[in-house]
């Protein structure tokens, strides 16, 4: 080839790439490790921004609370605590609203539509209409009256107080739910005239304008005897959504003033308070966002685009309920004067403390850095082969088709035919189907391996980057784990090594991919993660035998609320894992793309067989044998 033509040819680059594999390899490793350094750096409190109000009209500092119905709240709380049944509690709430406050008390029955999950309840709700406007906007306060009597009492007392005030520009809806997030979901569905396949509620007797914000209230659930429990704010919604940061700031500023306590973020997820080191909070924030779909009542508000958060208030002494009422009043009055819908502030952030946060501009690069090694190897594969073959590997399609089919069939089955009595057995079967190592059962053809490498590298990088836009913490966890797994599975093993070493390396990487099976990781995470980050009803410490019930929990979360964890696992993550497994098992490729290892031996055998057949055809071999 002459010199000019050589300049045109991309084989020059190709040869260079092949000669510099180890540079690519080392570069990728360094960048991956740099991701951890960046993670550590960006989570330092000195490096991040302090919180501020993007919506100054909220004016949380100017509100002077005048709530004075603490006595009433205490009395109600005592009565609610004494009540044994839900019906008794309901009648206390309605009586107190109707007789003492003169407010309407409506009820709404709701029931679960999911065949394998029987649940039903009755919500109670009331409304304090705005006196200074036509009520095109509203604000929402919600409490689970069955679980949190003190918060319920504080809200009833606040309703009575609010009715006597004349400065409301927005309607105040107070919902007393029965059944936690499901109950509030049923209320919000009917309020917004939305139909969901999971929960069905009766139509509401009265409605209002759009909710500018929603506040859920709950008593401090843990350490009832602990005197120094903190005031805490929860902010994670379903599927990685988060509350508007202005709303969180309002709750923190008013809460710290009225309750005279240092507010805590994410503290409600731990059972003890030994781990309160500042550096630990962002990790707990990411843990909560990634793995806990329903944190509280507020978690379903995001589905209806209601900015919601939960205030967890310590209410040990009698005076505490007056402070509680002041807190609710302060938040309500702050939201009352907001000029417009909360939209200016941050929606994507990681809280480092109650007054420090990292914005998307700083945390998104974290995922990108962890994904860069994959991008480098996409480039390597491209330059190595000088093209991306546009062949779509059929085996890769089969893995995804299998995952999608399992999801569609199981969804239909559990939505229509599943029963509570057989749910654990059915979930075990589903677990088996999801975990099926199709990467071992369906071996790809030889010519599929190279495009499959590019596909899995691209798919993993894209999934991480896309997920980071909706649920950053899930994306971070995924990219930290998936990058080395996919990296190892697709790494070329070169012919400079002996066949035995190549075989050994292949087995090693197959083992590595096998232990990175998502359900194995789930077990590990639940064993060690819950130790440090705390258990919740949705992520408890589980053993191997508990896996089917974990799957049924994930199913319930998906069907009732629309959590995307199980579909993500079935339709995307498991096919990626299976593709990685298939790539890891497949024969090593030489720089020219020729298969190495045991397949080469097969080729030699084929050559010998062909040669012998030819000799037989000429009759020479027969003569020699004779």
């Amino acid at each position, binding site marked *: *080839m002459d010199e000019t*033509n*050589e300049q*045109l*040819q*991309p*084989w*020059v680059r190709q*040869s*260079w*790439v*092949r*000669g510099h594999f180890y540079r690519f390899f080392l570069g990728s490793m360094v960048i991956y490790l740099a991701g951890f350094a960046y993670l550590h750096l960006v989570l330092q409190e000195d490096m991040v921004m302090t919180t501020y109000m993007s919506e100054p009209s909220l004016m949380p500092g100017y509100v002077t609370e005048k709530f004075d119905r603490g006595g009433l709240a205490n009395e109600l709380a005592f009565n609610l605590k004494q009540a044994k049944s839900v019906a008794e509690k309901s009648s206390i709430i309605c009586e107190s609203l109707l007789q003492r406050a003169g407010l309407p008390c409506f009820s709404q029955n709701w029931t679960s539509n999911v065949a394998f999950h029987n649940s039903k309840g009755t919500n109670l709700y009331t409304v304090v209409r705005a006196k200074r406007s036509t009520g095109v906007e509203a604000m929402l306060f919600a409490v689970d009256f069955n679980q949190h009597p003190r918060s319920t009492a504080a809200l009833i007392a606040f309703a009575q107080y609010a009715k006597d005030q004349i400065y409301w520009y927005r309607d105040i809806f107070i919902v007393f739910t029965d059944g936690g997030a499901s109950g509030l979901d049923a209320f919000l569905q009917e309020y917004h005239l939305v139909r969901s396949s999971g929960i069905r509620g009766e139509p509401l007797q009265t409605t209002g304008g759009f909710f500018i914000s929603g506040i859920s209230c709950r008593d401090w659930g843990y350490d009832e005897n602990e005197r120094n429990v903190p005031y805490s704010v929860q902010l994670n919604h379903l*599927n990685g*959504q*988060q509350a508007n940061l202005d709303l969180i700031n309002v709750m923190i500023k008013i809460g710290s003033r009225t309750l005279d306590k240092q507010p805590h973020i994410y503290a409600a997820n731990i059972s003890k308070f030994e781990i309160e080191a500042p550096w630990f909070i962002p990790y707990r924030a990411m843990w909560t966002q990634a793995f806990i779909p329903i944190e509280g009542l507020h978690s379903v508000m*995001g589905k209806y*685009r209601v900015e919601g958060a939960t205030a967890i208030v310590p209410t040990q002494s009698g005076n505490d309920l007056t402070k509680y009422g002041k807190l609710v009043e302060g938040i309500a009055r702050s939201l009352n004067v907001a000029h417009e819908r909360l*939209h200016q502030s941050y*929606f*994507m952030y990681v809280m480092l403390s109650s007054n420090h946060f990292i914005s998307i501009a700083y945390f998104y690069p974290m995922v990108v850095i962890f994904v860069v090694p994959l991008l480098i190897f*996409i*480039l390597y594969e*491209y330059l190595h082969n*000088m*093209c*991306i*073959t*546009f062949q*779509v590997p059929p085996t890769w399609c089969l893995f995804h088709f299998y995952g999608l089919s399992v999801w*569609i069939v199981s969804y239909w089955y559990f939505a229509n035919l599943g029963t509570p009595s057989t749910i654990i057995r059915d979930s075990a079967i589903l677990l088996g189907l999801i975990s099926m190592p199709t990467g071992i059962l369906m071996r790809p053809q030889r010519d599929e391996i190279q495009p499959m490498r590019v596909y899995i590298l*691209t798919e993993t990088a*894209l999934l991480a*980057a*896309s997920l980071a*836009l*909706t649920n950053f913490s899930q994306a971070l966890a995924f990219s930290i784990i998936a990058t080395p797994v996919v990296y190892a599975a697709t790494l070329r093993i*070169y*012919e*400079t090594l002996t066949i035995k070493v190549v075989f050994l390396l292949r087995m090693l990487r197959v083992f590595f991919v096998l232990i990175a099976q998502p359900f194995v990781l789930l077990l590990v995470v639940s064993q060690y993660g819950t130790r440090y980050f705390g258990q919740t009803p949705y992520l408890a410490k589980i053993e191997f035998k508990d896996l089917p019930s974990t799957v049924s929990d994930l199913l319930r979360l998906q069907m009732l609320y629309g959590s995307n964890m199980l579909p993500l696992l079935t339709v995307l993550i498991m096919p990626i894992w299976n593709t990685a497994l298939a790539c890891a098992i497949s024969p090593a490729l*030489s*720089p*020219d793309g020729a298969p190495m290892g045991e397949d*080469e031996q097969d080729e*030699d*055998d084929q*050559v*010998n067989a062909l*040669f012998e057949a*030819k*000799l037989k*055809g*000429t009759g*020479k071999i027969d003569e020699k044998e004779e």
Partner: protein
Amino acid sequence: MTSSGGGESRSDKRKGAGEVRKRKSCTLDTEVADVAQADEIQSKRVKNDEDGVLKVRTRHKKSNSLVITVLGGTILRILCYLFIYDYLSKQPQLSTPFVSFQRLQSGVAMLKDGVSPYDGDTILIQPIVLHVFSVIWSAPRWVLLTAYIFLDLLAAASIRDAVQAIFKELNYKDPDDYAAMAFKFYFLNPLTICTSAILSLATIYNSLLTLFVYAFCKSALVTASVLLGVIAYFSLYPIVLVISLWIRLRTFKKISASLGILALTLAGLFYVNYALNGFSTSFVKNCYGMLLTLDDLTPNVGVYWYFFAQIFNPMRVFYLFVFQLILPTMCLVLAFTLRNDVHFHLLISLILIAVFSSYPTHADAVVYMGLLPIINEIRIYERRQLLLICTGVTCATFLPITWHMWMVSGSGNANYFFAVSLFYNLAQIFCAVDILYMKLMRDAHVVMDPQRKKKIDIKTIEFF
């Protein structure tokens, strides 16, 4: 292969080692030479037989591949329709007011109720389309879906035959293989599948456009002119393809005839619509006025909606003129550069339409994507292949996510969606620029050294 550095030496060593292993495995080295000489005549016979068998096998493989493609594409469309129709139909990158099935439903309902669909500014679809759909409206929805799948098949077959015709006309290698590939590119393209599954009118327009491309490549000039008139009537911007048609026709007589046919088609269709609309021109403002003035700022994957949402009103008319003139001007100027390469002019014009039309969707891109195999012979000069593919795939993935962030979860805003659509259009522009660059480089090298063409052809990699 060019040698360079350690990679070459290792490669040579490996080859050498492979040969040694093969020799070792064969214990009858000397017999090999004897057999080879004695087998010469016999091997020729065997080879002839093998060629025959190979041809039959290849034919069977191709027919199997076609069946799998058609079956797979059909199943995917049905699955998309059954399970994610609601989700897809709300995606602005797949549906604009001009091709939306929901708007069509509203229009037909208004028509049936005796209300003029063009009284407001909701219905932007031509009267003839509304009347045709009002006739078939009572048919079950699966009949409509089947019809859409057949339209897609027709479009894919047209693209396949067009690519085959281009390859034969330009004396490129393996026309059948690349034609089959073009078929797959179109029919299995996820964007085509999604567009078809939501029953977008773009599927119908695309099938007309691909028929035009086929007629264009087959030099069926009357048919091409008529089809261009029809497609231009429905979506206006393909009218710029008349420039490609002119440079293909070349002679003044043919150009005049083509223009006459085009004008007659447009006039005929206009009259039919005028009559169907009760001899009223009220549809013109909605169907064409809105397209040209961009009054409907529904987000899409184009670049104009965001600009006109932000611009100050006094400047609006000026920029409207500028932006609407970009497309015809570019196509006209390119006609001088690519006057001898009409197929490339057609391809680049289709890309420009997908970028610079007022309300583009992904459906506008699928036609030129189907035609991309025609650049195979010049891909040796490509510069941004990986970048373009990765950008395209990333944008196609990010667009629905950013839309979700903006419209559903509220965690993002219009800037996110627009930023991704901007990159999407940037990738398309770079694609057009790259094709032009490849073509001009090839021409330059052929002019400089006629032998170069031969050398490059030998070294062309089988990319697809």
